[in-house]
């Protein structure tokens, strides 16, 4: 091949990339575990920026949406282009099975390294911690995880089940790995009449509705509802909170990689992070100020875990939890 042809080809491909970046269009399907209204706002903000892209989203709890996705992937006809779910452990599992597509050029230079996937298969979009919610009519104001084991909390604790919620799975693993009581803590909770079922939404409803007085829940739900007037409050327990990063990933079978990458870029951009903060989430980008009602990142202590180990023990954790709380 002569050099002129090489130059021509190089020029043509350069042109192709440039025009592709220019004309981002088509359809995108997002599978997400975000609450409906947040998913809607995020999608709307993205579509306002890229009016030629039409995004449809499908929402369900992390476990359920991933089960649906895996079933479709195995059948070879999933419409999903993007996945935005609670936790990176589930993402690791999907990446391991070859269902995700790396986006190596993603600009993550401003993000903390320890939150990142070195293979660039998934990207953290927020920081969501699990702490304690309580009804403001409750007699006790809990400050420690151990307070949920006391007499005042007997039959009054609601918590999400790791069989449904990705955040709850990480949370369970974090508690078991970092509190010196291990699984014993959950056994005592069960003995104290704690109820574990469904997702975080159910916990919020039970506590806000006064059916239970205390609960374990992701922080943004009670903080947001409190601002709307609901009789709930949230505490970061003294031992620390578990955290997930609500990662986003591009699926290997995406039909519209450019648009999917643009969606990831948007979530990682300062604009996307400010939107997250406005929605009432702790942004993953440290430069963006957290929303009202949140302590600064430095004030929160975390129950830190090893994600690889968490993935390894995920199934065993679910089984153990189901056994303790008598679920199938």
């Amino acid at each position, binding site marked *: 091949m002569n050099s002129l042809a090489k130059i021509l080809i190089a020029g043509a491909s350069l042109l192709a990339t440039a025009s592709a970046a220019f004309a981002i269009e088509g359809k995108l*399907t997002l*599978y997400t575990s975000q*609450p*409906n*209204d947040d998913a*809607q706002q995020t*999608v709307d903000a993205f579509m306002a920026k890229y009016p030629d892209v039409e995004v*449809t*989203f*499908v*929402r*369900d*709890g992390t*476990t*359920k949406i991933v*089960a*649906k996705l*895996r*079933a*479709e992937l*195995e*059948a070879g*006809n999933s*419409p*999903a282009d993007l996945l935005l779910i609670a936790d990176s452990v589930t993402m690791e599992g999907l990446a391991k099975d070859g269902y995700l597509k790396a986006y190596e050029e993603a600009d993550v230079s401003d993000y903390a390294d320890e939150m990142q996937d070195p293979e660039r298969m998934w990207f953290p979009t927020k920081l969501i911690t699990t702490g304690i919610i309580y*009804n403001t*009519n*409750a007699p006790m104001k809990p400050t420690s995880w151990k307070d949920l084991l006391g007499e005042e909390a007997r*039959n*009054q604790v609601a918590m999400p089940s790791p*069989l*449904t919620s990705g955040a709850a799975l990480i949370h369970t693993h974090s508690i078991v790995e970092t509190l010196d009581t291990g699984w014993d803590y959950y056994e005592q909770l069960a003995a104290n009449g704690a*109820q574990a*079922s*469904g*997702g*975080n*939404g*159910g*916990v*919020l*409803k*039970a506590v*806000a*509705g*006064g*059916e*239970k*007085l205390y609960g374990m829940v992701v922080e943004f*739900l009670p903080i947001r*509802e409190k601002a*709307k*007037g*609901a*009789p*709930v409050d949230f505490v970061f327990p003294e031992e620390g909170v578990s955290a997930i990063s609500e990662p986003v990933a591009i699926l290997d079978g995406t039909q519209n990689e450019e648009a999917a990458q643009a969606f990831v870029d948007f979530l990682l951009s300062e604009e996307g992070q400010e939107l997250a903060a406005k929605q009432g989430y702790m942004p993953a980008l440290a430069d963006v100020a957290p929303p009202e009602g949140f302590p600064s990142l430095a004030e929160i202590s975390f129950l830190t875990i090893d994600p690889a180990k968490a993935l390894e023990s995920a199934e065993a954790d679910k089984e153990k939890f189901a056994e303790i*709380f*008598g*679920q*199938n």
Partner: protein
Amino acid sequence: MAFLTDTLPLRSRRRRAESWYEMEGGTIAIFVIGAVAILCVVPMLQLLFAAGGVLRDGLPRAADLLASASVLRATGNSLLIAAGSTVLAMVLGVAVAVILTCMEMRTRRYLGFLFVLSLMVAPQVSALAFKTLAGPSSPILNTLGLAPAPGTPNPMLGFGGIILVMGLHHAPLVALTVAAGLSRVPKSLVEAALLDGAGAWTVVTRIILPVARLYLLSAALLAFVAGVGNFGIPALLGLPVGVTTLPTMVYRQLASFGRGGIENAALVSMLIALIAGAAVIASAWIMARRDVRTDGERGLEPFIEDLNARRICEVALWVIFTFAIILPIASLLATSLVPAYGVTLNFETLTFSQFTGTLWDQALVRRAFANSLIFSGSAAVILSVLALFLAYIVDRRLSRIRLAIMPIVEMPYALPGVVVAIACILLFVNPLPVVGFTIYGTGWIILFAYLASFLAIAVKPVMAAVSSLERSVEEAAILDGASVADRLTKIILPIVLPSVVAGGLMAFLIAFNELTISALLWSAGTETLGVALLNLEDAGLGTEAAALAVVATCVVAGLMAALEAAHRFFPDNALPWHQLCPRKTS
């Protein structure tokens, strides 16, 4: 050979006139049989094969599954809940049916309408309504100062609540079946007893109920089957506290483990089909043995004249309906009018934002409305056409196999929705042979399941109308050389159109509210109203869920009111709430 008759010109005209009745419309007959086979037979065979496959591959594994603690527990719960709710539904349903049939009261029609409305409201909406009514944050109980203390579990969660809500929800079903039986009690029997000096109580307990006993039994079995198959009520009131029934267990397993569990789900749904099927067959057997009233006799009409008794019953019914129907819906409305779940409703907190903005801003909700309208609307239109053909052909050409074809048509409707949904997944999960594509994961699979499930509903009134048609008009048309198509469109359709419309609208109403089928079959972009409600509940958006339930209830009530306004155009008893209140003719 039947089709040779046309080639035998020597046969008498009389003979011809008899034979056209049974011989023509071959194309339509093939179409109808094909449709029934594809919609009603193939999915069930597929389910049988899948369950059979599990049994063949490993009897021990299948036995392990069916005897596993979770399946045993769910089976026990299902039976307990179905039985408990049946008892409650029978007590209330029979009482309402007897009162409305035997007494003429001023507000009889309103009572009947309200009662049937509570059946037409989606079960998950009923469950949500009772849940918001009874808990510590109940807007109505709080206003009255009667709300349970904070920290008290919602009494509607768990067995008691499920049985109560389900029993109340199925009571109208019992009342409708019993009313059909009461209308067949010969009027002369009652009159004779009254002449002999029997009191109203004696007439009801010693004459009417014993004569209608087969209908009572059949109503109980119907309520039991509905209880075994119900998904919406135990999903909202049982799952949050870990009480699973067979349908909610199948749902949870499929939802959490994806298609991997489909074979187990098939086996469990065969178990559901077995329980429900036994009751359905028992009911069919009972109804086949019923005593048929002779033509000359008129059916039961209101006969209790005692003004005091009528007033007491009227007030009692209004009080019961207020607690069982009006208060829960009012509480749902109140919950939808506060900014956040758990906030007490007063003039400061009152907001319409869920209705004006929040709900409409969500593409999911808009899509769910559009989807529910499209799926149930197209199902209703297709079913209306199919019902016309089916009724005509079964009445004419296939009258001999009527006894075989009708149970097949009714089977998918009688079976719980979860069984039909799983049969559809099994049928379409792999690409179809020959054509090579699949409707799995699209809206078509939901439409298919609706067509299979609700054909029986659409065909019922049309069947009744067609079989009462006089042959003479058609015979005259034949002599004039009118083809089958001509006669169907120009003679039959105009006469039976009201029945076709009534059947289609009933199918629409039921499909519009449906949850069980779509909960298992939805995928990206094909969420229905039921799925959206469940999803909002699950995400903790309690006030939004309440608002959606209010809107859906208004749609149903509006449609029913429209049907009522147009009732003149429909045949007698095409509207279920009219069946409850027979008119006095003399």
